[in-house]
């Protein structure tokens, strides 16, 4: 590529020299007499240049495509992604054909019908049949593309299957926070943005017992392979957009309006390492809606693993409640018993002030009751 740039720089330089020399000549001629209606050499040069441009352009386009291809994303790691990729390359094929043919005609006609002394242009103002033909052909092609695209869209955007594994991803300036439905009940608890603070970055609502075992991460999202995954997406401050390029997933994160996207990731990170031949390969989640200064670096890693190892990994994780026992103050009295098993046992013995002390006391009792139950 460096050579190409060097080559092009030389071409540009050549063109620049040409321009300067022509300009000098032009300025010299500018004081000459006006040649009214005279159409000379320039017309032929311009006409020929269209052909040159087209030929070089097609070669350049083909070569650059073949060169750039190696950097395109690998085959999609999700069934819906492979479907949209197929439609993309199908559409690309159709429009490339249209692109080449129409541009060829445009430049070819420019060349063929350049001014010739004594020739008169054809007086050809309309032809209804032709108009009809080139209204109908694009319309039919569009209909096919729309129909296939619409079916793919409908399936991708359909409600997630009931057995889909749910995760929550929350965008903030400037990172993503993922929340897992927990080590035990596999249900995401409720949330409320007013509960957000440094300890509770996604505003988990501990009046909902489904929240107790939820755990969060800002560094990576682990998902099971081969199983429908439903991402529940929201934003804390401004718009963000979840983009998982290898899975062909994108959906905005909107404050005040939860969105979602479901998909199946059917190639684990390890499999992708083999396929791409890159031992360091990792899935990534990016942000594609401008969100401020750090927009370009909202990276979070995505790890796709087979279901068994995913389950095992989940079991090792500590609920947010366990790692941040202060949150226990938010649990209403009637649910304290259920939360107790997620609270570290030694929390009871280290009261820092009266309110935590009383909570911990309550916690201690509920441990007992939970054990009895």
């Amino acid at each position, binding site marked *: 590529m460096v050579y190409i740039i060097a080559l092009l720089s030389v071409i540009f330089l050549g063109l620049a020299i040409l321009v300067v020399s022509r300009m000098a000549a032009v300025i010299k001629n500018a004081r000459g007499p006006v040649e009214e209606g005279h159409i000379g050499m320039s017309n032929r040069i311009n006409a020929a240049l269209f052909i040159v441009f087209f030929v070089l352009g097609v070669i350049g386009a083909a070569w650059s495509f073949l060169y750039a291809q190696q950097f395109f*994303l690998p085959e999609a790691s999700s069934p819906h992604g492979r479907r949209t990729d197929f439609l993309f390359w199908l559409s690309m094929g159709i429009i490339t054909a249209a692109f080449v043919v129409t541009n060829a005609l445009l430049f070819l006609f*420019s060349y063929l019908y350049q001014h010739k002394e004594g020739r008169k242009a054809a007086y050809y103002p309309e032809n209804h049949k032709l108009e009809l033909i080139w209204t109908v052909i*694009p319309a039919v092609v569009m209909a096919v593309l729309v129909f296939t695209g619409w079916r793919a869209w409908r399936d991708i955007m359909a409600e997630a299957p009931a057995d889909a594994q749910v995760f929550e991803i929350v965008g903030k*300036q400037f990172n993503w926070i993922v929340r897992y439905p927990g080590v035990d009940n596999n249900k995401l608890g409720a949330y409320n943005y007013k509960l957000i603070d440094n300890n509770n970055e996604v505003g988990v609502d501990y009046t909902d017992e489904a929240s107790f075992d939820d755990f969060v991460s800002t560094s990576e999202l682990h998902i099971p392979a081969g199983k429908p995954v439903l991402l529940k997406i929201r934003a804390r401050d401004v718009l963000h957009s979840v*983009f998982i390029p290898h899975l*062909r997933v994108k959906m905005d994160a909107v*404050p005040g309006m939860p969105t979602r996207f479901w998909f199946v990731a059917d190639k684990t990170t390890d499999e992708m390492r083999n396929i791409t031949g890159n031992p360091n390969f990792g899935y990534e989640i990016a942000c594609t809606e401008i969100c401020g200064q750090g927009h370009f670096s909202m990276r979070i890693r995505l790890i796709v693993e087979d279901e068994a190892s995913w389950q095992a990994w989940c079991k090792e994780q500590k609920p947010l409640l366990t790692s941040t026992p202060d949150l226990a103050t938010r649990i209403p009295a009637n649910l304290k018993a259920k939360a107790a098993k997620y609270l570290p046992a030694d929390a009871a013995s280290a009261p820092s002030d009266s309110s935590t002390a009383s909570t911990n006391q309550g916690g201690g009792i509920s441990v007992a009751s939970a054990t009895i139950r």
Partner: protein
Amino acid sequence: MATLSTHSATVAHVEEHDHHEPQSFWRTYIFSEDHKTIAKQYLITGILWSIIGISLSVMFRLQLGFPNMKLEFLRPILGGWINEAGKLDQDFYLALVTMHGTIMVFFVLTAGLSGTFSNFLIPLQVGARDMASGFLNMLSYWFFFLAGAIMFVSLFIETGPAAGGWVIYPPLSALPQAHKGSELGMTLWLVSMALFIVSQLLGGINYITTVINLRTRGMSFSKLPLTIWAFFLTAVLGLISFPVLLSAALLLIFDRSFGTSFYLSEIYIKGEALPNVGGSPILFQHLFWFLGHPEVYIVLLPALGMTSEIIATNARKPIFGYRAMIASMMGIAFLAFIVWAHHMFVTGMNPFLGSVFMFLTLIIAVPSAVKAFNYITTLWRGNIRFTPAMLFSIGLVSFFISGGLTGIILGNSALDIQLHDTYFVVAHFHLVMGAASAFGLLAGVYHWFPKMFGRMMNEKLGYIHFWLTFIGIYLVFFPMHYIGIAGFPRRYYAFTSYDFTKNIFADMNSFISLAAIFSFAAQWIFIYNFVHSMFRGKKAPQNPWKSNTLEWTAPIEPGHGNWPGEIPAVYRWPYDYSKPGAKDDFIPQNVPYSQTPESNLPHENELISLEKEIEAQNLNDQFKQPH
């Protein structure tokens, strides 16, 4: 008999009008009510804005193409925005992107293109003395000027100009604490845009009124040049859609300054949960794109209209399918209003709505395809003269096709999931809307320069300018598609944070940046040619391109009222080029059929009897109204 007497009376009246008091310098050149002067004001302002707008893009292309480059040499211009390490500030990068978009879309391609040529050509091509209201027209320019002045000032304030992307989506743009660019810069952006919208509405009302009411004798809608059809439809689009942007901006001003929650809900930012609930950021996007999509056609239609005229004139052929061209422009103008949500497929909008908007969006490809085919067929069996204007028009058609085709992919909601907000989108709209419209603007300047300034632009420099620009723009935007297909998101300061963008396409980005600098450099040829020709160009003949439309029947440098004496009447459509039997290869619109028996088609001979009637109409000459 009655006709005859009114006729002689009006001739006397016209004589009076030829001797206007010379106006002061201020009224002639600054606060002028003359449409030609206002057009030139728009054009020159537009050119100045385009220099600023493109310079901004070159600055961020330096960052994207050469991320390790020391940009200290920019410090005299950018000051503190170049940090100690000699790198571009991350906030300012976004400000550059935002201001580039705003300036190019609104100030250059809306005001500079439509403002210039609607003002200049509508009265001259429909045969009117001036715009319906010269005063509103003057106000329109000065509102634009004021909007521009405020936007310009915002570039220099301490917190920088608006920086939330040209689409200024809230909540980012609504919360000053979210972003530097959402502080004073955003306020100035909103004030500037509000004034700009006022300017557009004043202009639009004038264009519509002039086209409807002030057409000369015989100039029926079916004889209007396609340029005027395009300007007319553009003005209608603007008049309907700009107020919606104004309402979006007003609500945003309320959210920013008066504590309302139109766009804000459930936000926790900088350690604080805001009280706003119930608003919707998506509402803003709907309102914005209700303007934003027609805006694409507001910048493109005038370019297409002028291209139709220039291609027909220089191919020495009637435009192919005049009625189909009008029908497709009307179709595009209508569909432009009902496709806006294709910008929002992945915003969380109801997927069913997405399906509807996908259907509607892909329909718009049909009239667009018809236009492209008609341009190509107009070239077929022509006798083409490659004036610089003609070259730029052919270039426009090429960009319109190349950029338009990728729209078929992006308009497909299933494919948009992956490509949304990637460089694929950037490549698409820069070709179809940016480059195509810019080529329309340049073609228009080359074509109508003789009428504007009474002198010719240098053709050879025009050729060189065309070829360098045409090649340069393809070199910038064609490779950009590849970067988009590889998933590179737009508005990224650097591509170093992700494995999937790290270490690839760095050379491609350098190449694009070089091509952008090259294309920008080529524009100075144009600017030199423009300024030089204005004062030193060869004197223009009255009808240098042997064109049919009315402006070429006016004096070389039309004065106040455009035509001394009577406004010419119109008898035929504007595309009688190379008519079989005719002596010349063009017959201007003001030549009656009775003078061209050798070339008349059978149905045209019947129209001869209507000529007396056309001549007798004299309703629209402002100089003949009692005042």
